[in-house]
């Protein structure tokens, strides 16, 4: 990666999100829903991350799934 070059005039209209947990999924959705193509890269066989392992979440005691 080059640190000191200015952004090109015609940048790529796509973003790579690495990690498909709750943060990665939210970032991917917001980026895609504002007009950019997203590659969501996940190391494991499925997205969801740690939150998918949780039972309920406070303070509302909603099901985490």
């Amino acid at each position, binding site marked *: 990666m080059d640190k000191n070059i200015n*952004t090109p005039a015609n940048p790529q*209209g796509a973003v790579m999100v690495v990690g498909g947990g709750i943060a990665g*999924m939210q970032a991917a*959705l917001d980026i895609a829903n*504002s007009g950019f193509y997203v590659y969501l*890269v*996940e190391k494991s066989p499925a997205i969801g991350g740690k939150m998918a392992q949780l039972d309920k979440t*406070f303070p509302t005691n909603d099901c985490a799934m």
Partner: protein
Amino acid sequence: MNIELLTLTEVTAISGQEGDITATLVQHPRYVDTDKCIACGLCAEKCPKKVPDEYNEGLGKRKAIYVPYSQAVPLKYTIDPNNCLYLTKERCGLCETVCPSHAINYLDQKKEITLNVGSVVLSTGFKSFDPSGLDHLSFGKHPDIVTSMGFERVLSATGPQGGHLVLPSDKKHKKEPKKIAWLQCVGSRDENRSKNSYCSSVCCMYAVKQSVMAMDHSKAPLDCAIFYMDMRTQGKDFDTYLEKAKDNGVRFVRSRVHTVMPDPHKGNLVMTYVDELGALKTEYFDMVVLSTGLEISADSFALATGMGIELDASNFINTNSFNPVSTSMPGIYACGVFTGPKDIPQSVMEASAAAAAATEGLAVSRNTLTKAVVKPKEREVAEDAPKIGVFVCNCGTNIGGIVDIPAVAAYAAELPGVVYVEENLFTCSQDTQDKMVEVIRNKGLNRIVVAACTPKTHEELFRETLIDAGLNKYLIEMANIRNQDSWVHSDEPEKATTKAKDLVRMAVAKAFRLAPLFETQLPVSPSALVVGGGIAGMTAALSLSRQGYPVTLVEKNQHMGGNGRQLCKTWKNEEIAPFVKGLIADIEADGQIQTLLGATVESVEGFVGNFKTTVTSVDKTQLIDHGVALIATGAVESKPTEYAYGQHKAVMTLLELDALFMEKDTRLEKAMEVVFIQCVGSRDKEHPYCSKVCCTHAIKSAMAFKKKNPDTGVYVLYRDIRTYGQRETLYREARKAGILFFQYDLDSKPVVTPGENRVSVEFTDTILGRRLCVDADILCLSARIDARDNTHLSQAFKVTADSAGWLLEAHQKLRPVDFATDGVFLCGMSHYPKPVDESIAQAKAAAARALTVLSRNSINVGGIVAQIDPERCAGCGGCVEVCSYNAITMDPEREVAVVNDALCKGCGACAATCPSEAPSLMGFNNDQLYAQIKSALAV
């Protein structure tokens, strides 16, 4: 649609620069063709190889071919190559034999993928601390000592114990625990045993939650005890939850536990600890939960260092308070726990913030690579006689294992209007969807019933299928024969089958009367209104402008900057004043931002995409058209009513002390004894919430005294020190620097007596059990932070606040910057007290969420909304009153009520209220509902 999911994939290298980055990735083989796999589960059923299940933290088993969990996305099986008998020893091959769709491919190879992107967001999260190495806690030596993640799985209905709280050591006899202990700070706030000196931020709150849930799960009274150092429940509503847990009987013991050992004689776990008064205690527990902290995995470390990104001493990505989602490498952004330990709402906020930051530099290329959906033309069926198709789902064995699906299908075939019935293993699977499209077209079906699960999760999917088949998407009705039937009547399969038939009959009766509904498109006004010109409001305004959208920034005062103007430094020692000045200069130089000073919002009309807001400033009133609104009105430090505040010049608040620091006041040099009192006016009966920032702010100020003169006596009187996350570093430094910390409770508050030049502060040293007295030159009070009065603004934008006045987000965990009202977003301290970095993250997040509206050309309104028949309306206004969304107004000329389609959420409250049945909810009209009810009764 515009998200391409690459699972089993890792980044190997990246090169280039922001705007034009080339990423090389490797995708590992799945050995299952995802296009063919229908997730029927036959493979896993027959697979002979059992391995510990990672998803259940090793507390259960999975097979070598598996889906991680039943709701996994994508719901496709994977072969674990390290455990598959065929891949390791070329034996077995059973899964290939049984797979009905020939999806197994043992020859699958890893692939290299190259991507060209403008920017990168890193969100690889955390790994839980592994307590195996901690001998004193005996983890791994007894099955009833579990980690907190393990305990989540124990509690979960989908977990290895089906949600039954029984001892892992005695699952056979379903022996329930009677006493459970939680040990906090395992792998956190511990430099000796774990190297993780930071606080993991989330463990206190999840332990409280788990204890409450455990009591809920337990049939007999359960003794829950949480052993902690400081209760760090600093988030919104967390302290209320904590107090409720105390009321429910959860015990909180301030102690770091010495040892946990299995007791072979008594058959349970023996724990040794020193209590608050210094006495050595021994107590027996049936189960011990280790509240393990969050840390960065070796993989994430390698990923970041490979990209040349700076990490901190604990391997979290180094960020500064003013750019909380930027890494040291331009073009690479980060969010979630990778930048520091944090909870879900904060992770979600940062994720949205990263979305805004990562696309700021790419704004000119918006919509260049995204794809638009091409939809087939809709068939006109309104006048046609119903030709109903019924699809009955087995949901694997979820429904099919209980309900007699062939019998339900045969029954459906006889119902009036039904011309086609099909049974599916999974009606929602991609291949079934494709087949459905064909069937609807070929058989000319014009109403669809899906008897499966809940419309809450799946109706949207089936609506898409109808669109693909050229049918109006509202011509579907779902019968929930899973959640409302097979799941709740699993003991009575025959009755469940009868109920399934009833539910299908009702759905068919309604489907018979379904009519197509239509939506209209309204253009979006591509600009934003930001209320509040503090750090949050300015950050959001700049972010939106850089994304290409004009902003009107409304500030009540004659100057921008808000609370930021009064703050000295962040906890990372960054000067706040120059940053705020920079923001103001950027705003002033930005041609797309119109700033209105001394201005207030008078009234708001319209709805998402099309707001019309009247703003009054000193000399003029103007009407502003905007598509979205962001509320960032901040908060205010309260004036204390105790500890001689206002009666003696030595007594001041944190902000007043910051002012002295900024003015380089000579009193600071002369001060020899300085006392800080925490939680002044916070965390009591009247104001139960924690103001979140004061512990860090006070300790940072305390350190400033110590740095000036190490001989100054500095005392902090606290209830719980809440230097969460990496802020713990500051607390540790403070202790090392000789700042003295004394804990007090609400019933033993410090006593302040004003003297001539000083004030005397008397308090108890709990460890010595003695009263101490300090004559303080400066007594600094960490005063509660109050919400501003947003009553008028809330009413104008139709948003709500909680009882303490904090504006209320749509969902505390998953939608932390959205209001329930579409198109209106919140950020900064108007949501809850928070430090500068979190305000900035939330401001960028609000901008990102606003962009999802602004970047659309139009919004769809209509569909399932209420319509009012003016002939029947008597003009009583009853519907106007019950409408929670202010979607109904009275037409003054005709004296009838009128619904605004853009505001109506289709809740049906108006239809239920009206005595003359004038409103009818489209898709749920009286004719349809009565038919459904009649059909329910007609057995």
